[in-house]
């Protein structure tokens, strides 16, 4: 059982906050749909949990978040649209 902590402590490192904020910004901009992002999170967390002990200390929620974010940006085609840009 992880130690209890107040709800205000949400990010363990600046990159976690950065990854979180970027995902919200991109959903707001319509680069991807928020529901699609969440579905991808659910699927990726599900795969992690199927392959690991649930108490595995290497678990990192924002590691998965960042991976999903990179994947969503890649499949949005944003990276390749420099011709239009």
């Amino acid at each position: 059982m992880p130690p209890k902590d107040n709800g205000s402590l949400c990010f363990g490192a600046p990159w976690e906050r950065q990854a979180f904020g970027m995902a919200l910004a991109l959903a707001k901009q319509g680069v991807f749909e928020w529901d699609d992002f969440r579905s991808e999170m659910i699927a990726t967390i599900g795969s992690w949990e199927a392959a690991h002990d649930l108490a595995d200390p290497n678990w990192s929620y924002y590691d998965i978040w960042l991976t999903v974010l990179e994947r969503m940006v890649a499949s949005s085609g944003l990276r390749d649209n420099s011709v239009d840009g």
Partner: protein
Amino acid sequence: MERFNYSKDRETINAARARALESLLIEKGVITSDTVDKIMTIFETEMGPFNGAKLVARAWVDPEFKKLLGEDTMAAVEKMNFVTKGAGAEGEHMRAAINTPQVHNLIICTLCSCYPWPVLGLPPYWYKDPSFRARAAREPRKVLGEFGLNVHPDKEIKTWDSSAQIRWFVVPERPDGTDGFSEEQLAALVTPEAMMGVAIVKPPGQ
């Protein structure tokens, strides 16, 4: 030791990945260098447990409002005029689970980390932890005990699993010793943990 090194490297690598992604998005003109800060400011000022505490306090002083909060949560939230726009879609479809002398409610998300951002802000890290999520669903009474909350054996514990469709929060019971308190005084007693159901609201001074 090996594991420790792995984690340490991962932190450095992830920081670089996040930086690279942000640079790309700025270069593409999708975001600017202060976009993330602006979004996080919304969480600090407009969406957070301070909103949930106001809902709970109103429910404690106004039985009609409490009824509405239980039956049509979004209509009750609408009456509060919270600023919740512009930060993703996690505020739609929120539902309140109201504690009673017979029932204690606990919110979880077994799939990932769905959470009612506009009224509770962002979840603490343990809410997202795989073993917490699995165990809270399977043995809530034991897990609550580990949080220091020993629910009376006669009291039923209900767990509410948040999802894309419904994001739950708990309306705790009003503590003793608060007769004549204003809504503002009451709201100050309400903690995020109590609105997740891993704690109760203690009488003032305890």
